[in-house]
């Protein structure tokens, strides 16, 4: 059902993803007072059996910050950062970098969740202004584990509706490579149709 999109539809989704991610990157850059660049979003439509594979290896340890988006186009949002980059990020926000070098403590987790919150706020605001779809995000949750296990958990409930996952992926990085993360918007089955409709590229 969602496994085929026309080039026009892919472009439209990429564009709206781009606008959202650009806002998020701007906010991140202001928050950290560093230059942050991003890639053009990639739209990946993958069978569930393969969806957990494509971010490094499935056993790669990563910090995942996960939020649900409610409203007109229910979706999931996921940020993935390698452990050292996540600690560095948390350190910048807490402003005591030397204190969070080795462990993901309560303070670091809280800081990272807040980053997830702020970035998602910017993304969702831009996305919903552009499409006119009402969207609201949940509080963030965080896990530090194998990236396969994180994706596996998030994608599991997509299985109820279909066999494919749509992942709109943007990479965010600082020019000095101190930050390097993946950002995913994962529309629930059905939400993609709503988004395409709103963009005027109805299937």
């Amino acid at each position: 059902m969602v496994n085929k999109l026309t080039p026009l539809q892919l472009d439209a989704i990429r564009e709206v993803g781009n606008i959202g991610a650009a806002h998020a990157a701007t906010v991140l850059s202001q928050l950290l007072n560093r230059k942050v660049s991003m890639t053009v979003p990639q739209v990946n439509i993958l069978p569930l059996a393969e969806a957990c594979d494509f971010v490094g290896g499935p056993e790669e340890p990563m910090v995942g910050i996960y939020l649900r988006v409610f409203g007109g186009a229910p979706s999931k949002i996921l940020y993935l950062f390698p452990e050292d980059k996540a600690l560095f990020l948390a350190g910048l926000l807490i402003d005591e970098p030397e204190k969070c070098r080795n462990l993901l403590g309560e303070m670091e987790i809280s800081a990272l969740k807040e980053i997830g919150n702020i970035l998602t706020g910017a993304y969702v605001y831009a996305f919903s202004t552009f499409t006119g779809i009402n969207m609201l995000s949940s509080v963030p949750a965080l896990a530090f584990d194998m990236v396969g296990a994180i994706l596996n958990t998030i994608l599991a409930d997509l299985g109820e509706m279909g066999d494919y996952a749509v992942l709109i992926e943007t990479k965010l990085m600082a020019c000095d490579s101190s930050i390097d993360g993946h950002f995913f918007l994962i529309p629930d089955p059905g939400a993609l149709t709503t988004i395409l409709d709103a963009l005027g590229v109805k299937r």
Partner: protein
Amino acid sequence: MSNSIRVGMSEIAVSKSPDLLVTLGLGSCVGVCIYDFYIKIGGMAHIMLPDSSTTNEVTNNGKFADTAIPALVSQMEEKGSLKSRMVVKIAGGAQMFSFAGMNNKMLIGPRNVTAVEDSLNALGLRISGKSVGGNLGRSIFMDLSSGVVKVRMLNSPDIIL
């Protein structure tokens, strides 16, 4: 030559000694490993969801506990295995994320484990080893020459089932 066979989300695989069945990065999903020590064949299912009755159309048996387990057992029986010789081990079903105000429906890991146990019970199969729940993801390695199942977690020692 032994092959290493990857079992992805919602997939079922059956093979024979000396192959290795592998699932990397299980979160809330549950890996079910069944081994027949007599003819040294084994199978693995990577189950995503507890119950197929919530969906209109089951496109893939491997996704749901109540459809994947009978499918796995019958695939093994086709290869000459007998239920009476099957040894069952399960791993996974972690609760990776917790939200404030979470409801029961969101606890997919523990629900998967319960559903897997129920489906195995219904077929008269007993679980001889398990590593389930908690909040850590798991990788499973099932050696079909011995039936040994190794469970790997991040920053903790391997568990042998």
